[in-house]
């Protein structure tokens, strides 16, 4: 029965996702054309183009039509899985995003996994050994990690491990070694966030009656921690991890730029600079879809972690 409820819930969430993505896309579509200064036709034509030449390019890009007509053309193509051709690359948007997404997905999953694991360990340790030197060191480390700007950390890692020690490559994405520094850069912040969250959540859980009862029954401290406390501690952590994954799947712009990773974030920023409307729309759809998917996944995981949660 639970499986049946869950299937219905997932189906309902997927159905809700479509109008949500459509709404986001519509807002972006209109904002690009109405509120964002800068004309893609002029940028594409270059400095020396005459007004007539700019007009020809505008016509070829379909930008000479009323916004509402452009929107309906976009919707029709979108429904057929066609997000248009990039103004800059002259390649199908979907194809370009499909090439960039694996890089972003890889650093997202790796950095969130590494960051969350380290964060959980630090968080649990500092909670269990609250008000000891371990807790103090943990707090200092997490505050430090949380305060480091991504761009600074990325450049420092490059200077130390690539330029100084020559053990890792500066840029690129052709081997696993290329991912070590970008993943470390993102994982540091992630671990600090998770550690702080885990610590406060764990302290709260450890002071609850059911944990006290478990202890008084003579259960080993490790068992109390693993079987009783940790599960409830994880619920807020899962929410934050989900938000991090959703955010990073839309592109870790600074990290991708610093390490020359050809991911979605860099693609989106370039697209905005070049007023590459189809590409901007494509990346926005990806970000919206990522958030919807990850949120759905988080809700499903909730049900497994916390038996009290039911999607009926």
């Amino acid at each position, binding site marked *: 029965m639970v499986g049946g409820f869950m299937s219905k819930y997932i189906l309902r969430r997927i159905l809700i996702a479509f109008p949500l993505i459509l709404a986001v896309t519509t807002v972006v579509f209109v904002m690009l054309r109405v509120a964002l200064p800068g004309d893609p036709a002029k940028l*594409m034509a270059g400095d*020396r183009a005459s007004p007539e*030449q700019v007009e020809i390019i505008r016509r070829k890009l379909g930008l000479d039509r009323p916004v509402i007509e452009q929107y309906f053309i976009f919707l029709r193509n979108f429904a057929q899985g066609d997000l248009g051709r990039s103004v*800059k690359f002259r390649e199908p948007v979907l194809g*370009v995003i499909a090439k960039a997404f694996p890089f972003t997905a890889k650093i997202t999953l790796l950095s969130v996994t590494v960051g969350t694991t380290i964060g959980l360990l630090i968080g649990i340790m500092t909670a269990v050994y609250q008000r000891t030197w371990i807790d103090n060191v943990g707090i200092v480390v997490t505050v430090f990690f949380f305060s480091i700007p991504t761009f600074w950390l990325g450049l420092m890692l*490059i200077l130390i491990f690539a330029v100084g020690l020559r053990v890792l490559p500066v840029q690129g994405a052709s081997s696993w070694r290329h991912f070590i520094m970008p993943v470390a850069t993102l994982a540091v912040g992630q671990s600090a966030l998770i550690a702080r969250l885990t610590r406060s959540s764990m302290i709260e859980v450890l002071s609850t009656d059911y944990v006290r009862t478990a202890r008084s029954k003579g259960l080993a401290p490790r068992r109390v921690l693993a079987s009783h406390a940790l599960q409830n501690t994880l619920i807020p952590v899962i929410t934050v991890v989900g938000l991090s994954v959703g955010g990073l799947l839309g592109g870790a712009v600074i990290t991708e730029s610093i390490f*020359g990773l*050809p991911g979605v974030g860099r693609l989106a920023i370039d697209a905005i600079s070049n007023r590459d409307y189809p590409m901007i729309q494509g990346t926005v759809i990806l970000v919206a879809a990522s958030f919807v998917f990850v949120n759905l996944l988080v809700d499903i995981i909730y049900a497994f972690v916390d038996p009290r949660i039911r999607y009926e």
Partner: protein
Amino acid sequence: MNKSGFAVLALVLLAALLMGGVVVAQDDMMAGKGGRLVVADANSNTSFDPFVSSWHSWPHYAIYPTLFSRALDMSYVGYLADSWEVSEDSKSLTINLIDYATFTDGTPIDAAALKWNLEKYADPESTASTGRALITLLDNIEVHDDYSFTMHMNSPHAPLFFVLAGLEIVSPAAYEAIGPDDFGTNPVGGGPFILKELVTDNYALFERNPDFTWAPPELYDHPGPVFLDQLQILFIGEEQTVLAALETGEISLAGIPTQNLADAQANPDIDVHVAQLSQIRYVGFNTSKDPWTNPDLRKAFAYATDRQEFVTLAWDDLAQPLYQPLPPTIWGHNPELDEIAPSFDPDKAMAMLDELGYVDVDGDGLREDPEGNAWTVPLATASPDEWLRQAEVLEAQWRAVGIPLQIDVLEFAALVDLTTTGTHDLFLLLYGYQDPSILTYFFDPERKGGSNRAWFSTDELTDLLVAADSQLDPDLRYEAVTAVSTYIIEASPWVYLAVPPALTGVRAELMNWRIHPDTSFLYWNAYFETE
């Protein structure tokens, strides 16, 4: 076998020996040379189809040849063109092509191919950002035989050779077979390299074109093929990342940020080349909007600007102060014009502002407008730190004579767009080019709302620009360009600021490279020593 049979056989053997000798000599020349040249160029991260790309740099000129090239003395020399002749009325150009060049699909680079290319560039529906001059200029092309043709123009055009030196020649057969949608990712040219792999937004990898033997002798020691085995272009732009990759040897060539010059020069693995760009930084006024319609007010700003201090503070003295619309790196620059141009004279600037009614009424050190109201001078600038620093230097200099500047920071595309609206005031921008005809684009009355960002034109200036652009005789053209520059200096629609530096770092392992006076990197004879 009779006598004539022996003679033919002897000739064939001799020819074979000679050809063999040439091949052996070429093999000898290439022995121990090769490697992969890796460069970073984020700007080249566009389509490789020259008819749609808005940027033409490394990949394009690796793949495609051009009709002409520029020698080290900046004169035009043949690349695909073997010889040429301009008609007496300067309206026709007859070109004889070299007869041994081929596209990499095996088709010949002949007169028919050139006609197809030039007509495509001249098509009003073309969206090519180069060769646009041909749209109004080219009347027709007359093909005489396989390797010669004449371009008939509607009027004489001084920058014709400059235009033709920039036009990339593609294989018509390949373009028509592949189609415009896919040619950008499957380009076919006849240049020194062939595209091997393109990973969009990541990198492009090129291999040596083994058939390429038509490099211009004025620029290269040997005609080709190039010594390098491969060329890789990484589409990365973060300057500190690029610099770090240069230090580790991951890339072989990079622009050096001004603040990193000393470190790069101290690094024994990097050779540093310092030059000036064919580029200028300037402040433009919207001359269609009051009070910037007044040339004396604009000139007062020029007198208030200390270019020497500007280049010191903004570029550690690596840039060059500029007092006229063309930098020394663009042909047509006349150093004598610096004498007549407004240079730093704060007393004169203050006197002019006083005379125009901009005086400090409330005693706060800043001037009010002629009606006595608070005066604010908005200067729109791009957001990167380098630009902001330059705007702040100007703010300090102009504040010293009582000009209250307000810096408006915009994203680059938004800044450019603002200048097309006509509602703007002052703007800090740049231009980069290699021919004085650029001034036509900036002061053409038809381009207000486009590239004429100062919204400045007069009938007299238009006549001067037309005269400069239609004079093919170099001496007479120089005089005509000087007249244009003189007029613009006098009218002061811009305050010319500086010629930025071109700082190039090259790995010491790369041999035999050279930097062209136009700051392009000549690498076709460059190589890494190989086993």
